[in-house]
């Protein structure tokens, strides 16, 4: 499993980059989902969102899941390119597959750092 040291993670497998305000899903999550074929971002630029709000819906060949905001703030950008290339979530979950960016985003209280999240995932079996 691969994590990125500067990110914070939610137990529902979203990551939050406090520096850029970006949000996406973890390598563990994309691996569980397998081949992603559809992404829909459920929020728009300018929306104020709270922690836990559904921000995207992702469908793979065999599964479907909602993505919840790991942080609160105002949506400053939406990754429109993702809709046309949902497979990016599998190939580059921490990079090109960011979903939205928050302005003045505040991380949720229960986010884990990378090593704690790694440990958490290892304990989940499969």
């Amino acid at each position, binding site marked *: 499993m691969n994590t990125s040291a500067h990110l914070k993670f939610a137990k529902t497998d979203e990551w939050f980059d406090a520096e850029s305000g970006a949000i996406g899903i973890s390598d563990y999550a994309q691996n569980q989902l397998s081949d992603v*074929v559809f992404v829909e971002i459920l929020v728009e630029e300018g929306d104020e969102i709270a922690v836990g709000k559904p921000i995207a819906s992702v469908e793979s*060949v065999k599964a479907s899941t909602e993505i919840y905001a790991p942080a609160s703030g105002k949506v400053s950008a939406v990754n429109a390119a993702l809709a046309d290339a949902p*497979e990016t979530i599998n190939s580059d979950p921490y990079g090109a597959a960011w979903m939205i960016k928050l302005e003045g985003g505040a991380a949720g209280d229960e986010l884990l750092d990378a090593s704690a999240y790694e440990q958490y995932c290892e304990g989940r079996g499969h």
Partner: protein
Amino acid sequence: MADISTALDAIIVEPTVFELSSPGRTGTTMPAADVPAADSLPEHLLRSELPLPELAEVDVVRHFTRLSQFNYSVDEGFYPLGSCTMKYNPKINEDTCRLPGFLFTHPLQPIETVQGNLALMFELQEWLKEISGFAGVTLQPAAGAQGEFSGVLMMAAYHKMRGDTKRVKMLIPDAAHGTNPASVGMLGMQVVTIPSDERGNVNLEALKAACDDTVVGMMLTNPNTLGLFDEHVEEVIRLVKDCGGLMYGDGANLNALLGIVRPGDLGFDVMHFNLHKTFAVPHGGGGPGSGPVGVSERLLDFLPNPLVGIIEEGDEEEDLAPLYGFVTPKHSIGRMKAFHGHFGGGLVRAYTYIAMHGPDGLKDIAQHAVLNANYLQAKLRGTYRIPFDRICMHEFVAEGRFEGSDVRALDISKRLIDYKFHPPTNYFPLIVPEALMIEPTETENKDTLDRFVEAMLKIAEEAQSDPELLKSAPHTTRFGRMDEVKAARELILCCWLPENYESLT
């Protein structure tokens, strides 16, 4: 978009009707017009082209015959697909449903001209009431899922009528079919998942904690999707009713209960039937289904519109049949579909089947369906782990995995195909890892079951000795495993006539 070159590179086993087309062919003749020609429609209302295939009748017959040979079916062999009740479909039903009196009656004909149809529907309503213990039955819903949607609509309407507007929660066990939460989702209700206990029953403590005055009701499949009859079903129903909720029964597994117990007697308020499972209506490659719904006294007025009723009583002494017609329940939730349900394909076949069984024959069905399932379970128990191991009903769930092997349920299933069996249901219910859900039905003999057991035991050996054999299965079929990712990414969802079609001669 589709990568055309990839598509062209694939080996074509059977061309499509578009590829088989040739300009100027036709598969049928029609009489010449016997009326004077009328003015045509104005040009701007007409279509510019009609890009449909042209084939001769023999082309059509050979094409679809070849396609049929790519299918596995109940007529060919054992089909233990759990939760789907793939029993044998008696041939007489195929003839009765095609009687001209049924085939050529229009749904809007005056009732006086369709008394045979209406009598059949009325009697079937009565029979289903008797079999299930409910006070009323609608035959209208098109399939189980639509029956379920009707049922949930009635539950909502019942609470609304009483001014009980705070009820928003539907309790659903973790082993439920996906249609249960989806039906609830269609009404914007909130799903509360209730876990199972270690014997596969509803966890009573969790249920007690969830029961309050915001509960719409509970949707319970019983026997559940583990194939187990809930040992505390009466207690479950009492808890739900004590908090003012209604009890929905998912009738998907009714085959195990015919003549054994009536859901209405247990206290259920509403249940859908799957005529295509329980009463041998063929599954048709994925439909049509037929999903009548039974309700208790307190939901009678909410049934979908219309029902079949008696408009004028008959007189037996004078050999005068009653006049049947359509009636509207007082607070009906409305119409679920156009016309009156899946009459020809569903109701006539189910009626024929029930008529040929009678009360004792129906009980035989349930008893032997349960015997066959328990026999398979007993024979497989030592080799495949049965996580909830007790006397099952019409089906049981085994784990498709082995200690120290990375072979999965999917691999076992695909390998079964090599042994000429249809695989069980995979990966459902979700609470059993690598689930193999096995439902033999009552229409299989002991030899077939023994051959199936033999294949399953052989596969368990192969999983240790040659796991690759399983992972690359099936080997003996016309087609190998499909690239599902390619299908979902490229989304080629239809085909067309070839680009140079008009110039073909």
